[in-house]
């Protein structure tokens, strides 16, 4: 019994929680006389997942590397206004706009990574700082909405393949690439190693700065994609769209909800996707039930803490045993469990 319980990974639990959320959502929606699995509702949930999904995938990489990225909402806003400014309603400008926006965001991520690795500033402070820098730039140079997206670009958000929005498919594609990177490439393995214990990774001969910088660059690039998607949805750039969404804290919450250790070195993308989906389902159900928007925050806050509490306790205990023989205290702890 004990063995079977301990073989349950936290990802399994997250998907269990997601299943519970979907069942509860379906019941609550049915009580309100609607169909949870109707095309419109599913479409709504998938659309909600896509934007937070992009950011949360990037945030997972950063958290796995033992850092944090609080600058994401400002990168989202920045790419939204910069993209809209360059496009200016002309379909011919879509490609240069996307390229410039992504390059700009990757530059921000590079700066984040360099500050974290070479100046030895904690990721929390480094990205809080770069976020503030961008926020000041946005507040000084953009008043209200800016630029506009041409119709061709807006189709990015409006097109559906069957019931699935294209934006969700792109997000899942990015998730697949990120999973491949983490499982199959040297960079991914090094990211886990550095996040688990940077000193041990360094003594093993890794360049500890490379994976962390790469994670920050990818995270900012994915935030830029999220910003461009918001631009496609709203058709104008908005300098405060990112901070309105609270994407920094919500993405970190989704990452931790997905079973990734906040300290780094343990976790995966699949869990994060489930975490994002849990948020989307909860938001959707509360929307159907017409819960007061302020009370939604209360529910979100409680759900985050309770869901993480379900597996956070055992998360720390399932590490492989160390090489040394167990001490008397360890044996006692084993018994107690």
């Amino acid at each position, binding site marked *: 019994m004990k063995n079977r319980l301990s073989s349950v990974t936290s990802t399994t639990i997250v998907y269990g929680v997601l299943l519970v959320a979907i069942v509860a959502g379906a019941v609550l929606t049915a009580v309100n006389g609607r169909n949870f699995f109707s095309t419109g509702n599913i479409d709504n949930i998938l659309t909600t997942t896509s934007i937070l999904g992009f950011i949360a995938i990037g945030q997972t990489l950063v958290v796995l590397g033992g850092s944090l990225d609080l600058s994401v909402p400002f990168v989202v806003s920045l790419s939204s206004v910069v993209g809209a400014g360059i496009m200016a309603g002309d379909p011919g400008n879509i490609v240069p706009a996307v390229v410039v926006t992504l390059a700009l965001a990757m530059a921000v991520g590079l700066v984040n990574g360099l*500050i974290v690795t070479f*100046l*030895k*500033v*904690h990721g*929390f*402070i*480094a990205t*809080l*700082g*770069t*976020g*503030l*820098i961008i*926020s*000041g*730039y946005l*507040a*000084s140079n953009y008043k209200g909405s800016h630029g506009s997206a041409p119709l061709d670009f807006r189709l990015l958000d409006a097109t559906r393949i069957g019931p699935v929005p294209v934006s969700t498919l792109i997000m899942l594609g990015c998730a697949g690439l990120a999973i491949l990177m983490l499982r199959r490439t040297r960079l991914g393995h090094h990211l886990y190693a550095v996040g688990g214990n940077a000193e041990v990774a360094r003594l093993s001969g890794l360049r500890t700065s490379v994976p962390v910088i790469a994670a920050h660059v990818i995270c900012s690039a994915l935030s830029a994609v999220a910003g461009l998607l918001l631009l496609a949805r709203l058709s104008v750039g908005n300098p405060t769209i990112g901070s309105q969404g609270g994407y920094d*804290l919500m993405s*970190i*919450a989704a990452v*931790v909800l997905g079973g990734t250790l*906040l*300290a780094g070195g343990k976790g995966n993308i699949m869990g994060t996707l489930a975490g994002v989906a849990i948020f989307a389902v909860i938001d959707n159900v509360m929307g159907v039930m017409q819960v*007061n928007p*302020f*009370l*939604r*925050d*209360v*529910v*979100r*806050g*409680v759900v*985050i*803490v309770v869901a*993480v*509490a379900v597996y*956070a*306790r055992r*998360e*720390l205990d399932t590490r492989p045993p160390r090489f040394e023989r167990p001490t008397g205290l360890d044996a006692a702890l084993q018994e107690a469990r």
Partner: protein
Amino acid sequence: MSTATPSITTTETQARPELPLHQGSLGSRIAAGLATPGGAVFVLVGVLLVSIMVSNPNFTDPGALIRFAGRTAPIAIAAMGQYYVIVSGEFDLSMGAVIAAQVVLAGNFIGQDEGRIIPGLLLMLAVGALIGIINGLVTTLLKVPSFIVTLGMMLALSGLVRYITGGAASGNPVDAFRDIGRGGIEDVPVVDVIPYPLIILVVVATLSVWLMRRPFGRTLIAAGDNPEATHYSGAPLWSYKTRAFVLSSLSATVAGILLVGYAGVHPSVGAGYEFTAITAVVLGGVVLGGGRGWVLSAAAGAFALELLFTLLTSLGVPSTWRDTVQGLIIIAAVAVSARAWQVGRRPRRTTPTDPSRATHIATPSPNQPSTGATTGEN
């Protein structure tokens, strides 16, 4: 811990003093203290103060200075509360929401009834303590990362407050209560008025320094530096960390009481205070992740931050660029202090440098020194 009774030879003292903080004359000790990030923030406050006085002569008036100190008191108190949590290795993101909740509570419970001021204050402190206890127990006993616990608390509290108030200003506490935040002792020579917030700040700061010199404070820093070692030394980590969270929420409560006087009752009062407090604490040279830093440096960090904003305003920098400057400053400050802590760190004793000590240990049993030396490094 093994260096509790170091035997210092004279040659070693000249080459590298073993415990710099406890050696030399008072002057050299202060100089050594100012070289650490926790001391450097006081120099920063001095430099900023002088530059403001140069750019804006109005600021040289003692009355203006003391009113500035009174205005900064809430953020300094919040920073000292955040200090306890950060030095024990955790985060408290719920601070701003706690302030908003307390402000709304004051507005609605006390209202225009002067008789309810004392019960109101007690109720606010009780609510603050309760929030801290919940944060602390969920973090320590349920093992949820404090980042997530206090984020959840922030969402829940701020949602609840805006739900109750409908998102608009509501309730107006009686003027006697608001005077705690905006009043002061009048007709004082030289400075004209001593604001109550400043007095409260001095009291809180004194208590904090006393508390951090007590076994509680020492253990809290140890818990942030090395939780495992602190646990094995017999300290109940959950109790210490929970008390840190309670102190943080209580500080937010006090900051809320003061802010009612300045800002009135609105659910957006206190928004973003958690990040400002964390910034102030970090600016004060306290290391995120715990175990390093001085409580007064956190308060000084808050003053440095407010002085910086005042300086930017008096230099005519548009307020929209404030964020950018703040971001640059905190990155630079933390980058510099990360270097400074590393330089100031005592060298690790991988080999016993003092021959007399090594032989002393080696005499009873030849096996003992090897185990004693290796367990410390593994």
